[in-house]
């Protein structure tokens, strides 16, 4: 509190008057004449008692009244904070406090400073103002909807915690804009409190504050930060003596301006230190560390890579979960006519370890239903439906989730009893040998099979010549995923039960097409078999913010209990959608609710690598992008508020009036009390 006329405080000396009256004058005003004081003088007495104050309450009332009146004359006023001054400059306001709670705010004391700034902003709201607290990281949420109650806002702020999420300014600013646009208050302001990570703002966010809304950036970032991070790791598998050996290569990034030398990088597997290496990383550069291979003994091992230590420890560790590789078992059924009709296919499937394919080639005549057990994909390569699988066995296999790839050729034939397995209605052979042959003109890149060929120079199908193919008229529910240049169907998919069937209308060897000789053959075959086997590549780690479908990942339907890295237990019923959002970094453990003692499935979750990049964004750049006028008066006022003069502030607040009124009321009360006491005293005297 400040005072416009502090010299008036000299008047506080007047407080001595009532004290003097109480102590001395009060006794003098009643003089009792007494014949002689010769006996009184003989009595020893204590001066304290003689000077004692009998009516403390009265004295306090008088002193307080004098103090209040003097304080009123001194013209007090409250010097205002920047935000409060803005508030004083006109009208009620709607304030949205947008507070960054992303993982990067855990750097040093950024979070504490951000909370302090938020408290200041809350403290600046007036009685008629309203404020909303928006917490954001990757997403934004209203922690406290528009309220003038500072207590509730403070409480909401107190319960706010750092998250592991990445920084995204877009959703938060959009939410702030929508809150402000709904408000009927005269002034609409948003305060963005953040470390202003550059990675959180791409510039393409469609956020625009209309005129009348202001955005005040409050940066709690630290210039010249140093930060080491382990953003990723690679895992190379090798089989040695029927055991898988994993070689881990960790990337270490130095996101600071200073070189990091001899940074210890350690690899721990299931809590055991495997190896420590040191690495030096240049400023704003990365380095990799390759550890000695370790043998994968258990079905699931938890590995941790740690690199150095700094003010942002969350990104110095990198978790992963390693599982043994899964093989895709493929049964290739041939016509049994001899020749090398499966040569190219077998060779193509013998390559690759993600996944590794286990191929068995069997003539159609020798195929038995038992051969379908534990097969992921059955390929009918230029052959008939095996007699052993006719009569529903193949259909049941597909319905249970098996994959069926049908490649047509000279020996292909499809019985009418199995038409419900074939995608479409099979026609005759189309001979395109008269010209250059047909090419695969159209591919559905949205389909998983062709997705990898979407990017330019990701597979040249134009060089493929198809001399013959079987005409196929797809059913209404079948999905054509490739067509020839004449519009005929090249590949079509049909869903049967849980399984998938793809009909490839030409051969997979070199009899009808030269596809097997082209570079796209191998990835295409791999994609086809991966898709049909419904192979999901096991990820070694996830990133904060990802959501996983437990029902898909863990196919058994059961109630599950998820334990988050912070120890929170989430119960997910079998009937629930089963989508688990990974909001914390660390290790999630998923157990079956019915078998709590069993080995849990584990998911390693790491920070978004972008969160490790603490390079700051110029707040004015963000303000300019959002408001459209970085130098607007409103924003300028927010950053550098126009200062009210002391006289103006005092005039606006009018505190003196209340003090004077209180003083006068106190005097009136004092008079009443004093009269009452006086009457009481007279009765006794």
């Amino acid at each position, binding site marked *: 509190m400040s005072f416009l006329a502090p010299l008036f405080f000299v008047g506080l000396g007047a407080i001595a008057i009532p004290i003097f009256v109480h102590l001395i004058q009060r*006794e*003098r005003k*009643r*003089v*009792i*004449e*007494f*014949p*002689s*004081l*010769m*006996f*009184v*003088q*003989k*009595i020893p*007495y204590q001066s304290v*008692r*003689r000077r*004692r104050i*009998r009516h403390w309450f009265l004295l306090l009332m008088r002193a307080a009244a004098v103090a209040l009146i003097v304080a009123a004359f001194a013209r007090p006023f409250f010097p205002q904070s920047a935000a409060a001054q803005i508030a004083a400059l006109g009208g009620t306001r709607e304030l949205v406090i947008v507070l960054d709670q992303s993982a990067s705010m855990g750097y040093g004391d950024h979070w504490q400073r951000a909370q302090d700034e938020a408290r200041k902003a809350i403290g600046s709201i007036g009685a008629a103002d309203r404020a909303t607290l928006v917490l954001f990281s990757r997403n934004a949420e209203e922690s406290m909807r528009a309220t003038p109650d500072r207590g509730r806002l403070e409480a909401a702020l107190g319960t706010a915690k750092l998250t592991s999420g990445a920084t995204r300014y877009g959703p938060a600013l959009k939410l702030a804009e929508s809150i402000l646009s709904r408000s009927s208050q005269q002034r609409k302001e948003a305060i963005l409190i953040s470390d202003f990570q550059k990675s959180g703002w791409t510039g393409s966010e469609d956020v625009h504050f209309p005129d009348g809304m202001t955005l005040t950036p409050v940066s709690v970032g630290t210039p010249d930060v140093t930060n080491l991070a382990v953003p990723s790791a690679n895992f190379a598998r090798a089989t040695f003596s029927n055991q898988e050996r994993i070689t881990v290569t960790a990337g270490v990034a130095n996101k600071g301006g200073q070189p990091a030398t001899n940074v210890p990088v350690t690899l721990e597997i299931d809590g055991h230190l495997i190896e420590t290496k040191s690495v030096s990383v240049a400023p704003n550069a990365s380095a990799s560390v390759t550890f000695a291979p370790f043998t994968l003994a258990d079905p699931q091992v938890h590995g941790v890579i740690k690199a150095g230590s700094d003010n942002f420890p969350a990104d110095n560790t990198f978790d992963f979960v390693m599982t043994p590789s899964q093989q895709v078992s493929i049964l290739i059924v041939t016509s049994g006519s001899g020749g090398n009709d499966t040569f190219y296919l077998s060779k193509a499937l013998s390559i690759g370890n993600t996944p590794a394919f286990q191929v068995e080639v069997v003539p159609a005549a020798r195929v038995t239903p038992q051969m379908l057990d534990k097969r992921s994909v059955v390929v009918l390569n230029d052959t008939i439906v095996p007699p052993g699988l006719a009569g529903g066995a193949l259909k049941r296999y597909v319905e249970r989730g098996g994959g069926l790839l049908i490649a047509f050729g000279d020996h292909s034939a499809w019985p009418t009893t199995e038409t419900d397995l074939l995608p479409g209605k099979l026609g005759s052979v189309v001979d395109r040998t008269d010209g250059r042959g047909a090419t695969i003109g159209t591919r559905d890149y949205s389909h998983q099979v062709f997705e990898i060929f979407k990017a330019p120079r990701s597979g040249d199908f134009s060089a493929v010549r198809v001399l013959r193919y079987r005409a196929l008229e797809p059913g209404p529910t079948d999905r054509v995923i490739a067509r020839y240049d004449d519009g005929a169907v090249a590949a079509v998919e049909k869903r049967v039960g849980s399984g998938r069937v793809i009909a490839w209308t030409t051969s997979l060897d070199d009899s009808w097409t030269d596809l097997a000789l082209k570079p796209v053959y191998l990835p295409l075959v791999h994609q086809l078999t991966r898709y049909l086997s419904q192979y999901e590549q096991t990820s070694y780690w996830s990133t904060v913010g990802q959501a996983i479908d437990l029902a898909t990942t863990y196919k058994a339907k059961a109630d599950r209990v998820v334990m988050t890295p912070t120890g929170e237990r989430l119960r997910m019923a079998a009937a629930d959608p089963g989508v688990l959002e990974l909001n914390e970094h660390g290790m999630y453990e998923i157990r079956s609710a019915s078998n709590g003692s069993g080995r849990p499935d584990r998911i390693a979750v790491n920070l978004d690598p972008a969160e490790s990049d603490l390079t700051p964004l110029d707040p004015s750049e963000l303000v300019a992008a959002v408001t459209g006028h970085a130098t607007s008066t409103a924003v300028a006022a927010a950053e550098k508020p126009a200062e009210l003069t002391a006289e103006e502030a005092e005039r606006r607040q009018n505190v003196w009036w209340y003090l004077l009124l209180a003083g006068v009321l106190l005097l009136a009360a004092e008079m009443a009390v004093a009269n009452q006491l006086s009457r009481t*005293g007279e009765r*006794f*005297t």
Partner: protein
Amino acid sequence: MSHDSRGEMPGARFVDPKILARVGNLELLAKTVVDGFINGLHRAPFFGASIDFAEHRQYVAGDDIRRVDWKLWARTDRYYVKQYEADTNTNFTVLFDISRSMKFSSGGVSKLEYGAFLGACLGYLATRQRDRVGIITFDEDIVTHVPPSAKHFDMVLHTLDRAKAEKPGHLSAPLHRMAEHFKRRGILLLISDFYDEPEAILDAIKPLKFLGNDLIVFHVLDPQEINFDYDEASAFEDLESRDQIPVVPQSFRDQYRSLIQEHVTSLRTKFSEQRIDYALLNTSEPLDRALFSYLSSREKMMRVR
């Protein structure tokens, strides 16, 4: 002497008929024989013309030869003079302290008024006994002096009526001067509040006894002086010295009462030792009752003697 509108003498109000109705039943007897001219109830202090023979003594040169007992000379051939014990009237002088402390009153009559009543009553009584009545008022000095006379009762009343307590008082100086002044024995009635040390008071009074005066002391005090029943802390002003002292009565009361009681006891003891009649009178008590009790005790003492 002026008369008021009701045709009464000034000072006549002091003679309260109710009081006199009770006091008149008693006889005021002087303890010692006082010489005088009117035969009365008092025994004369001197041997002289009287009907009650007292004793013979040998003639000495200068004796009146009319008093020689010639019959005894005839028997013994020696000159003896006859001496008689004669009843006579006496001087009754009121010594009235009118120092400022006497004007104190806590609500009823002031000590000055009470003392005036007292003096008037006893003066009237003395007049009826044909004693000569006089008065001396004093504070730090003698203020008024009315010599004892059979005709001065009105003046005594007048003096009592006009007495005003205006100056601080002191017993010693005026009483010493009085002692020098008295030529004849008589009854001295001293009315005061005796605010002094008992020894100093006694020293001041002793000279009055030297002539053989019969001294009666009335110690007049207001009830507040005895009880000190004040409640509120106040500044107390000494009426004599005008000094002020802040006093919290609650804390002083017990000690004050003890001190005043000690003072009264000390005075009573010391006066008794000097054969001086002492009575403590409270201005809240009826005047007639105070006189009655005093005169009763006085009569008893006479009988004992």
